[in-house]
């Protein structure tokens, strides 16, 4: 039998296979390169980048929960200028497309970061993070209101010709409303889910564990919620979906694909197994071969039928 096709197209971004990394869990790439051949991934999504450098939130910034973690990094990053100067040259050496995740305090911030990155070249697509629960301004505030989500999307849309992936928050009553709204505003693809808003308390101190009180929940614990979100959004809009949230095996990835995701991202799982993303690529291929499926795209959304 010939090898099954793994290539997917995510709103104009061609990926050789449907596996990428979730922003914020894979640094800018070099951090994991001792462990994994990044070029074997369909794409790599790098850390959330903002107009100005950000210090992030006070520590502790992470705490483990049952089958999950809470993080409150708060978008610490060196700012877009630094990323362009120091990481773009590295991105250009990769044989896999790089998607930069962008964030801002204001709509203009987003647009400016998008513009700077597009002009610099070497970036294959932008992921617009309107769903970070760890910042006071911007982030989730944009993502939980369909109108504001559309505003951010439209502003970035005017600032760039790059494929635009808009990243949705699960912390909403109806995720399909936001999905529909950003679709109309010019998104080329959607990624979901960002983290669930959560917290933990240290009963010895009687205080919240995280320096920032609340944080974002990720990891296997959230998989059922993420899968449901993908299922709902697949029914609501036509855009390709990058599914994520608790994926740590090829089986998990296949669940997301069957629910409607055209690609998947590995986040928290990288921390436990730094080679997981490539193992998921291999596992998907194996499944296709075993089940005589020629093209991964045939699996997308099959669970709806």
């Amino acid at each position, binding site marked *: 039998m010939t090898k099954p096709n793994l290539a997917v197209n995510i709103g104009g971004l061609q990926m050789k296979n449907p596996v990428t990394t979730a922003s914020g869990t894979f640094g800018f790439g070099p951090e994991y390169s001792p*462990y994994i051949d990044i070029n074997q991934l369909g794409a790599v999504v790098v*850390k959330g980048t903002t107009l100005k450098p950000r210090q*992030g939130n006070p520590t502790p910034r*992470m705490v483990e929960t049952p089958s999950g973690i809470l993080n409150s990094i708060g978008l610490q990053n060196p700012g877009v200028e630094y990323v362009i100067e120091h990481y773009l040259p590295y991105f250009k050496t990769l044989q896999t497309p790089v998607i930069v995740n962008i964030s801002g305090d204001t709509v203009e911030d987003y647009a400016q970061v998008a513009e700077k990155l597009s002009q610099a070249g070497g970036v294959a697509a932008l992921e617009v993070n309107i769903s970070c629960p760890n910042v006071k301004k911007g982030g989730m505030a944009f993502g939980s209101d369909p109108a504001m989500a559309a505003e951010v999307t439209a502003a970035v849309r005017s600032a760039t010709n790059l494929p635009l992936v808009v990243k949705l928050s699960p912390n909403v009553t109806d995720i399909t409303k936001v999905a529909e709204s950003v679709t109309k505003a010019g998104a080329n693809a959607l990624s979901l889910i960002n983290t669930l808003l959560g917290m933990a308390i240290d009963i010895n101190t009687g205080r919240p564990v995280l320096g920032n009180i609340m944080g974002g929940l990720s990891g296997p614990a959230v998989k059922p919620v993420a899968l449901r979100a993908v299922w709902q959004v697949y029914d609501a809009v036509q855009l390709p979906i990058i599914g994520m949230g608790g994926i740590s095996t090829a089986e998990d990835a296949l669940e997301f694909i069957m629910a409607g995701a055209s690609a998947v991202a590995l986040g928290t799982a*990288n921390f436990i197994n730094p080679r997981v993303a490539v193992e998921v690529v291999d596992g998907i291929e194996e499944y296709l071969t075993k089940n005589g499926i020629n093209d991964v795209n045939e699996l997308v959304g099959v669970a709806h039928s």
Partner: protein
Amino acid sequence: MSLLINATILSNNQLNNNHYLMKFNSGQLAAVAKPGQFLHVKCGGTTDPLLRRPISIHSVNKDDGVVGLLYRVAGKGTKLLSQKKPGEILDVMGPLGNGFTMPNTAEKVAVVGGGIGIAPLYYLLQKMTAENITCKAYLGARTAAELLVVENIKKLGIDIQLASDDGSTGFHGPVTELLKDAPNIDRLYTCGPLPMMKAVAQLAGERGIPTQVSLEERMGCGVGACLACTCRVKTAGDNQYKRVCADGPVFNAGEVVWDD
């Protein structure tokens, strides 16, 4: 060089109530590991606990390719670690972090360890002894039973000063008191509870002794990618967050912002 290894456990011995010494086989790791570096260890086989746990490289025997971990059972991860049996597989990532800057051979060195803080210092002592560097060890703990691997350190031929909070052995009080009167120290290394390291750093600052400390923070990735493990360090302008896993865990005492 960083590795992802399935190593075979050789032994996993309980030292006291809640401390264990594990040895496993990995020639590759033994060949490259530096004192002060750590491993990111998978303690369980399910998603609970989810994350790896950072554990310092405690000892290395290059000839036999044996690496040792000294650890305290603190919670569910280390509890699972303590249940592993010889012959079982240990999944470790590493060596991670920067490690201690080795002293010049002429320098007179002291290490100051508090409780489980002796873990990374022992490998440093191994290495310094092998290079014939003169070093002393100041070791403190709450009580005599929690002064770990003292016999092993003695076997290296190291001069040891002991202190215990409850006076059950050695000096009755904080180990830093012993340091106050210690003459002829060119360089200090310390690992232990934060207040202890802070006291050492202050003392060292006053006496102008170059000092390195090994810090701890809750970790996610262990490789510098997630920015979970940051600590604040003094820089030219603002204080900045640095990553304990990738920029540390060893920092110069003078850089660390202790009042964070």
